[in-house]
Every structure is written in structure tokens, then in C-alpha cells.
């Protein structure tokens, strides 16, 4: 399996452990990732607030780069995934808009064809028959006894028309992966909700409340850790957890893992190799469960 890897900005910035663990997962599974070093930021739905055409042009350019390599594009961030799919849908659904976007790209030597390659989140790749078989064959250290709560990230679920999950209101893709890794998935209502990160600069209390409600829901459902497919959710749930914990009378301390960290743990990598010591909330309590 060979893919063009759209890393997104946060995996190269505040959550470098996501990048690290993605590389380790790919290495352990024998998946080849070609990093898209000239792809621009997806804009996270923020650049489009300023200028929708600009956001679509930047993203069509990124998709075109993968098309030129004749490789399906893989994201490791729910936000990047959703935003790239939105551009794909905007541009593909309107031939005159597509022409307009391609006119912008032309001078840079790129052309967005559309429909040539797939845009998938890493979780979707692992959730294919081939991905699941790879996981089954390569698991060295089953995560027996670990209760894992998936936190999907809004952009891979909504709008449902652009989601790669069969039932975006009740997705099971991440939980299927957990089971193959030997972990026990925990189902809880908040797993498809918003982490609050997009408004952390505008309405901090509401943002932390959203994250706190999700964490409490996961803890009440018996989870040992929350596993997310989105580094922005990770920042909201992990980096800001001390503030969230203080805001909640009940307390809500729980480790937050990136999906590739969980995968690579089961492939036999150590927590240090996966940057788990970089988390704000210590993951040490998981060592005891996995010992």
C-alpha cells in the first residue's frame, strides 16, 4: 500500500508525536507514505471564512499534487480530511467553478482533474479489508484489557454526504480497529460530538465545557483512555485538560491518545518511541493495564 501523505500543520507543530507515531505505524504495517511536502495548509475551514475561493484553490492544488503522483491521498487529521473533501465536492459539482479554480492553479503548473484519486483518513485506510488484514497479521502486543473510547472529530462525520463512514451518526470504524488491536471499545454518546477547539480563542468557557462533557462521558462509560483521529481534538482534550479538570466539579482526568499511537503500541513500539511522554496528561497509567 502506497499513499501520498497530507500531514497537516498540527502534526508538524504542536502534536509532533502524531507524525512520529504515524511514521512508526506505517513502518510496522509496511505501508509506504510519500509526504506531500509542497501541499499547503487545508485552511481548517478558517481561510474560507476570509475567502472561499482561495481555500478551494489551495486545496485543489494539494489534491492535484497527489493526482500528479497517481497516489491516493491520506490525511491524519479529521479537520484536514473534511476540508479537503469539501473542496473536492465544491469543485466537482460545478464545471464553471472547476474551470475558475484551474485557471488559478494553471500558472503554478498544476491542474485539478477530480475523481482520479481517493481522499481518505488514515482510520479509513486501516478500516478497509486490506487494512484490517494488515493489522490482524502485524499485531505483536494485543492491547488486552485496555478500554478505549473513540473520539472521531466532527469533520470526518459531518456533513454525512462527504463522510467515508457508512453511518456517520453511529460510526464503528475506529472501534473495529480497536478490537483488532485487542482493546475493548467503549461506546458513549459524546464520541461523535465536537471537542470545542474551533472556538477556544473566542469562547473559552463553552469550548472547555464541550471538551469536559465529552471527557466525563468517556470516563463514566468506563474508558481508560480516549483515542482521537484529529490533532485539534487532541489539543482540546489533552493540552487544555488541566483547565477543564478545574472547571468540572467531578474532575475528568484521562489520557488522550492519537489513533496511530494506539496502533503502533499494538505493533510493539514503546510509548517513548511514539512520543507519549510529550502528552500533557500522563499516559503512565496505561502501562499498568498493558503490562
Amino acid at each position, binding site marked *: 500500500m502506497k499513499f501520498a501523505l497530507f500531514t497537516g500543520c498540527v502534526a508538524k507543530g504542536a502534536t509532533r508525536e502524531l507524525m512520529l507515531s504515524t511514521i512508526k505505524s506505517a513502518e510496522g504495517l509496511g505501508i509506504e507514505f510519500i509526504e506531500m511536502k509542497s501541499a499547503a495548509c487545508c485552511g481548517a475551514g478558517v*481561510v474560507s471564512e476570509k475567502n472561499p475561493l482561495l481555500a478551494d484553490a489551495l486545496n485543489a492544488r494539494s489534491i492535484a499534487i497527489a493526482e500528479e503522483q497517481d497516489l491516493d491521498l491520506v490525511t491524519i487529521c479529521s479537520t484536514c480530511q473534511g476540508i479537503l473533501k469539501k473542496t473536492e465536492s465544491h469543485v466537482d459539482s460545478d464545471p464553471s467553478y472547476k474551470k475558475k479554480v484551474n485557471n*488559478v492553479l494553471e500558472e503554478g503548473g498544476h491542474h485539478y482533474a477530480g475523481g482520479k484519486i481517493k481522499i481518505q483518513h488514515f482510520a479509513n485506510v486501516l478500516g478497509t479489508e486490506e487494512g484490517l488484514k494488515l493489522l490482524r497479521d502485524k499485531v505483536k502486543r494485543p492491547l488486552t484489557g485496555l478500554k478505549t473510547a473513540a473520539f472521531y472529530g466532527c469533520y470526518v462525520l459531518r456533513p454525512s454526504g462527504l463522510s467515508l463512514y457508512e453511518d456517520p451518526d453511529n460510526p464503528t470504524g475506529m472501534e473495529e480497529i480497536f478490537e483488532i488491536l485487542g482493546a475493548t471499545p467503549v461506546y458513549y454518546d459524546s464520541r461523535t460530538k465536537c471537542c470545542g477547539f474551533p472556538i477556544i480563542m*473566542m469562547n473559552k468557557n463553552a469550548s472547555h465545557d464541550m471538551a469536559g462533557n465529552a471527557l466525563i462521558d468517556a470516563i463514566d462509560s468506563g474508558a481508560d483512555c480516549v483515542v482521537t483521529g484529529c490533532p485539534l481534538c487532541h489539543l482540546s482534550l489533552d493540552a487544555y485538560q488541566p483547565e477543564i479538570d478545574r472547571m468540572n466539579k467531578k474532575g475528568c482526568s484521562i489520557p488522550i491518545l492519537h489513533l496511530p499511537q494506539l496502533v503502533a503500541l499494538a505493533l510493539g513500539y514503546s510509548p517513548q518511541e511514539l512520543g507519549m511522554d510529550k502528552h500533557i496528561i500522563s499516559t503512565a497509567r496505561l502501562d499498568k493495564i498493558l503490562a
Partner: protein
Amino acid sequence: MIITFKIKRYNPEKQGEAYFEDFKLDVQEDLTLLDCMNEIKWTLDGSLTYRMSCRSAICGSCAVKANGHATLACQRQATHLVKGDTIVLEPLGNMKPIKDLAVDFEPFWEKINKVSPYLQPKQKAPEKERVQSPEQFSLIDDSSTCIMCGSCHSDCNVLEVDEDFLGPAALAKAQRFVQDSRDGKTLERVKNLSKPGGIWDCTHCGECVERCPKPARPFDRIKEIMTVALEQGVTNNNGARHALSFTKSVKSSGRLNENIIPVESVGFFNFRGLFDLLPVGLRMLFKGKNPPVLHKSIDEVEDVKRIYMELDE
């Protein structure tokens, strides 16, 4: 097929706590959820309370939560909603239940009223009608389809934690006037909508788009207001500063500069805001989790800059 309707019952005159009651129905393929609710009321329990009227997805009365998500009961076939052999019915969220599936819409209407949902024309009324071109109308066509069913309001993730948020229905309604070519209060409207509780408090969760039974798609409309607010120069708030800083960052390096954006978003002279950023910043620094100080550009960043130039950004 036999479907069990697990319905949340509530009657404060009889009992303070809500409870679930099961009703079994033999449901034909073509029956809507509302048909089933009517069948339960007419044949099994006449006291079951909910709102309904047109049965044609026009009046917006019959929205309820089915299996945890708001939906217009007359627009969905029951057999498409069933999970296993059950449909769980609850009142809409983010509003106070009055009885069974009927909720108090008063706070919803208060929010709609807050956005001045009426035309405030540029000029005095002409003798004949005010003409709009198809292009001008297309800007407000989608939001005009809103039937005020409350589905978006019910499932909004922000309203769940902050009742001061105007919410998706009111903001979609606001867009209908912000972008109306005949309206004369655009600047005043976007100034009001940029205040706390307005457009920039939307968390992009997409629930409102997902639950909207019409093409109104509130989140898409909220983004349109954001664009107008920035065009109109209404930028003295964290949301607008965040959008501008983000866009500038991608222009200069092709990537997000996570060290700069929080500072530019709260504003250089907002000492309280900057102070609030300190704990998380220091925490990340201590763990070696802070974004690299030397911010690297993507390869071929010149092409990204060229695209910005070409689009006058």
C-alpha cells in the same frame, strides 16, 4: 415490520421526572415517523403529546429527536430510522420540555427576534416592487427555505453549553438579511452579529447542516456572514482576528504558525487575553510540545503566494 417506539413521556402535572414508555406498532414500509406517532396517539394512548400540522415538511411543527438526533417526523420513513427493531423518540434538545415531545420554543423565537429578522430597506418604498436579479436572490435563496422547525437548534453543540449563543437558526435567518441586496443595514447587522454569542462562537461541528431538513444549512450561512463581516472591516474581535491571522500565516509559509496565531487572535494589547494563554503555553513548553520556534515554510511556497496575489489576498 413490528417496531417498538420507546417514547420519552413527561407530564409535570402528574410526575416530575420524565420516563420512557414502549409502544409496539406493525409499520408498513411507506409510513412516515409522524404517521406512526399519530397511529400511537389515535389507537394506543390519546394522551401522547406532540406538535404537528401540515404533514408535508412545510410547517416545521413536528421535529423530534429520533434515535438521538433531531429530525422532521413527517419527512422520514419510520423503517429508515429503525435501529434493530426500535426507534427512541425524545423531545428536541436545547429547549425545555413542556409535555412529552412538545418543547417550549419561546427562547428560540427570542433569538430569532434578536437578529432583526425583517428587511430594513436602503430607500423608501418605490411605487412598484423592489427588483432583485436572479444572482442577487441566489445569495439568500437557501436561507429563505428555513421552516423554523428547530432541528438545528436542538442539536447545536454550542447551545448545549452556552445558552447565550444565538444559535444556527437565528444566524441563518440573519444571513437572509445580511446578504439581501435591498437591505440597508448590512454593516450594523454584521457588527451586532460579531459580538460574543454571535457568528464567531460557532464551533463548526456541522450538526445544524446535518439535521436541517431543507437547503438552509445554517453553518454554511454562518460562514457567509463571517466573510461579509471581514469584507466590511468588522475585525475588532477574536474570531475575525483569528481568521485574518490564519489566512496571513498560510500566505507567508504555506502553513499554520501555531506560535503566532493565538497571540494575534487575542490581540497584541489585550494583556488579560495574552495572560490567559500563558498556562497552556508554558505547559506545552515544559513538555517539549511547543511548536518549533523556527517556523519552516512548505516546499514551493512561492506558488501559494502567487495564488494569494492572483486572488487579491
